């Protein structure tokens, strides 16, 4: 049996270096810096709040930093424009990452961040679009955001508007029946204006996803539901960028990007540790985490 795998490597190298333009170095550095600042704020917020979800907030930082800086380009001024791009955080428990991002792009003041989870604060523990209108959809009850995003994508088509709907889901959400109802509907309505990111960090509250209730083979499942499928490292900005250069807008197909990520990414003692799904760091751990982030 001849091994042709070297050909794949050549092909990969070719595509990577010549087929698609590489991401601009300055842009890449600026997103990396944004991601780092978001992580620092996530830790500070959760420490101050005394509760929350560090693991799943940290795993989606690069996806959010890339999306909001390069694609959605959200500002305080354009946040309510009729033709703005929409973002639905279906995994609502990851909202500290969004709040941190919003403070970096001038929507929230830093001191407002530390009102997270406090009585009377617009920054609820899970996103609330009524109390904090910069959020598009109130979520936190898992498995619902994709349906709403589909409705928004259908609405955009009906209006002949050309904005894009982005939706960020978690792997645990794939255990919800409503997700599969929604996954059936996306292709039926030819929603090529919908891009779904799966923050596939492999861990949920009670343990590893493949032990709680296996969702694999995710790729085969989603592909068989007729989505335009991509699979990338969700922390690799160049891979995220490359996916966007490959996606075709007007082909009638909704896009689904499996982003392999690391729960607790960026803080060594939180990475891949089930214990950090839903527990906020205490003072000592928060200090350790911040030192590590500052040095990174």
């Amino acid at each position, binding site marked *: 049996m001849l091994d042709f795998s070297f050909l794949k490597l050549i092909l990969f190298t070719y595509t990577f270096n010549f087929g698609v333009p590489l991401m601009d170095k300055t842009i890449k550095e600026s997103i990396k810096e944004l991601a780092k600042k978001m992580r620092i704020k996530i830790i500070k917020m959760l420490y101050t709040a005394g509760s929350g979800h560090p693991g799943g907030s940290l795993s989606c930082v690069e996806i959010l930093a890339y999306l909001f800086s390069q694609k959605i380009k959200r500002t305080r001024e354009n946040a309510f424009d009729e033709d703005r791009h929409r973002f639905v955080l279906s995994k609502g428990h990851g909202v500290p990452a969004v709040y941190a991002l919003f403070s970096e792009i001038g929507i929230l003041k830093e001191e407002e961040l530390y009102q997270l989870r406090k009585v009377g604060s617009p920054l609820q523990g899970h996103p609330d679009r*009524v109390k904090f209108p910069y959020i598009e959809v109130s*979520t936190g009850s898992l498995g619902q955001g994709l*349906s709403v995003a589909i*409705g928004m*994508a*259908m609405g955009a088509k009906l*209006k002949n508007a050309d904005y894009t709907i982005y939706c960020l889901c978690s792997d645990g959400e794939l255990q919800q029946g*409503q997700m599969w109802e929604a996954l059936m*509907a996306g292709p039926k309505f030819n929603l090529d204006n919908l891009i779904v990111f799966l923050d596939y960090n492999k861990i949920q509250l009670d343990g590893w996803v493949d032990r709680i209730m296996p969702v694999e083979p995710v790729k085969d499942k989603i592909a068989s539901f007729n989505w335009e499928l991509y699979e990338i490292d969700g922390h690799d900005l160049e891979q995220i960028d490359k996916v966007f250069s490959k996606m075709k807008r007007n082909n009638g197909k909704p896009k689904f990007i499996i982003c392999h990520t690391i729960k607790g990414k960026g803080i060594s003692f939180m990475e891949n540790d089930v214990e950090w799904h839903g527990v906020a760091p205490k003072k000592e751990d928060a200090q350790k985490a911040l030192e590590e982030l500052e040095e990174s």
Partner: protein
Amino acid sequence: MGKPTRASFGEALVELGEKNKKIVALDADLSRSVKTAAFAEKFPERFFEIGIAESNMVGVAAGLALSGFIPFCASFAAFVAGRFETIRMSVAYCQANVKIVGTHCGLGIGEDGNSQMGLEDLSIMRSLPGMVVIQPVDHVETKQAVAFAVQHQGPVYLRLTRQDVEDVNPRDYSFQFGKGVVLKKGKDIVLFATGALVYHTLEAALSLEKEGINAEVINIHTLKPIDNDLVIQKAKEFKRIMTLEDHNIIGGLGSAVAEVLSENEPVKIKRIGVMDVFGESGSPDELYQKYGFDKEGIMKSIKAFMKS
């Protein structure tokens, strides 16, 4: 001759859809039963068949509402209200302008039996902050209630019948959101009824005149917000209050009236409804007879209450 309120809803939706291009309809494989089929035929680009997936239908409706449309998502009351968690989060908590339509409510659906009977929907929909809950009584009221739902900014739950209902309102009737409607004046007892039971209650009250009982009949079409002022005022006028509904005795009209009166004007209340049991198969008439919802059954209940 009356018709089912679901049919009046279907007519209204087409008429309103003609004028208002923001109206869209979503279906979970029941458009011929819930009467959105005519809208689908007339405005195919504004009709979305979601399949037998009510949770997704509700969520998609929320997304359309947040994009500026006025979605009506209709199914049997049991099925659509059964997707409570999606309604709670994606519709009510989001303050999404979604109109949820539950048809085939109560024992009145008949032969299909309990699995298809919405008997708990009023109770759970009433428990959601910001949710308006309306059960229109006849053709003219249903058409105006649908028009109201279109112009009302916020989530609305409309409860409709499978079976024919007789007209109780005059042709020149004007729907007043949140206001009870006095259909017959009386002095001995006041009967608050809603939905299909209003007509039977009216019949019973008219028959009781001959037996010397003079009952007042009030149609409560808006269950949330309930007409506090009217309910309190009537409690002051009458010593006896009765509520009548084709719904579980827990959480519907009887509960709403009791909630108001126990805090404002305590008075004896007799609640008529489905006595916390599941429904069953049978013809609508037979079931109404068995559960005391027909004219004779209601007369019997009133007489017993008057003696108590």
